């Protein structure tokens, strides 16, 4: 059962304020892409795929640990965008955040539908809890648009206390529920809730300045 709480044309506003200095940050491109995709321009879709697929695959693969399934989830996310995107308005939100959200939600839906999920949880080791999903990659603006966003998110994650970062890792990048995190870490559910609440509070503050960034 999917939970898709956002629409690409829903609340939000593009500002001309703080934006990453990468080529992705040009709002004119975002606006142009959105309008062309809304007009059923397949070449625009190809451009969006080229710009965003590595990040979407990263999210899906981090959660599913399966290349084929990750690709299927990303394909479904683009299908959702293609079918629902509307021309740019003052309320339009970014295409990439929307794709990231749809991709993550679909990956979670798949993850929670898996029969073997319990077995996978049982196999998580303390070492794996600190593994590379949220480890920063070397920034390379020329090779991979979006690196500045990646760097900023990592700076925010890196400032979290280790136990909060581990909880966020499992919740956000592995797709575990609070109860599953408690079982995986062997700590009370209330402790998990507290850690996540504190972590999300810190992250909201740390990432707030990026909330209106666009592709």
């Amino acid at each position, binding site marked *: 059962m999917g939970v898709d709480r956002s629409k690409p044309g829903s609340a939000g506003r593009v500002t001309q304020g703080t934006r990453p200095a990468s080529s992705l940050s040009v709002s004119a491109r975002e606006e142009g892409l959105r309008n062309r995709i809304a007009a059923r321009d397949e070449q625009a879709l190809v451009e969006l795929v*080229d710009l965003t697929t590595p990040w979407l695959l990263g999210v899906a693969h981090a959660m599913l640990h399966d290349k084929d399934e990750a690709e299927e989830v990303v394909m479904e996310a*683009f299908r959702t965008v293609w079918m629902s995107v509307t021309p740019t308005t003052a309320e339009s939100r970014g295409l990439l955040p929307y794709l990231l959200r749809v991709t993550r939600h679909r990956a979670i839906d798949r993850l929670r539908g898996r029969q073997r999920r319990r077995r996978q949880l049982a196999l998580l080791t303390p070492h794996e809890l600190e593994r590379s999903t949220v480890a920063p990659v070397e920034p390379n603006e020329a090779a991979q648009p979006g690196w500045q966003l990646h760097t900023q998110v990592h700076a925010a994650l890196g400032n979290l206390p280790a136990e909060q970062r581990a909880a966020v890792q499992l919740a956000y990048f592995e797709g575990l529920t609070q109860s599953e995190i408690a079982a995986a870490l062997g700590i009370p559910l209330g402790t998990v809730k507290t850690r996540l609440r504190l972590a999300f509070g810190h992250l909201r503050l740390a990432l707030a300045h990026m909330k209106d960034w666009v592709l």
Partner: protein
Amino acid sequence: MTAHDWFTEHRAEFAARTLDAADEATFQAHLERCEECRREVELLDRELAWLPMGAAPVTPRPGLRRRITEYAVRGPAPRWTRWAVPIGAAAGLLLAAAGWYAGDQRAASLADEVALSRLRLAAIEDTLSVMRQAARVLQAKIDMDGKQGGLVIFADSKSHRWNVVMHGLPPAPPNGRYQFWFIYADGMVRGAEVQGDSSRPVMFTTGMPSRSGEVMGAALTLEPMDAKDGPPRGKELAHLML
């Protein structure tokens, strides 16, 4: 603490989808009627929108761009096309298996035919070898109910076998049968029973009895049907001496 406080506390968890299934459903139902929570969750969505960018990027495999765009624009392939390749492969395998089975059956059948033909050829060669190596050839004319027939014996002394040809004789009457005999000094020893057929010669190869060195000749009689043993009781049609 009011009931709404629970929803206030869990907004971030709902936005991040870390609530358990039952709590998530409860929160989802609450959002339908709570403008404040809906607004706050939307704000959280925006504030945490870039958090997934923390995952390391993955380089797409070759061909993924084309598959993504085709899927996005045209949607999932119809079910039958998704199964077409596996079904085609399965059908191909079945056909191959059926072909192999049929071929195998045909090969087995041909092998049987070849083996039978070899046996027949060996029998013919053996028969001819008796005739070719025969040291003696005996021949007698037979007059049977106005029909002219005969008996020819090719005697091979090396293999101690005779090749016997009976020709021109009609089928034996219902109460009789043709009987071949070996002649000894002390009497006659019963040999093969022969079926008469006037339309074509009857040929058979027979080994010599145990006292082959003492055989003096051969005879053909028309025996009564009930004469199964003992000396000849019927009419003698041919009598040949070596």
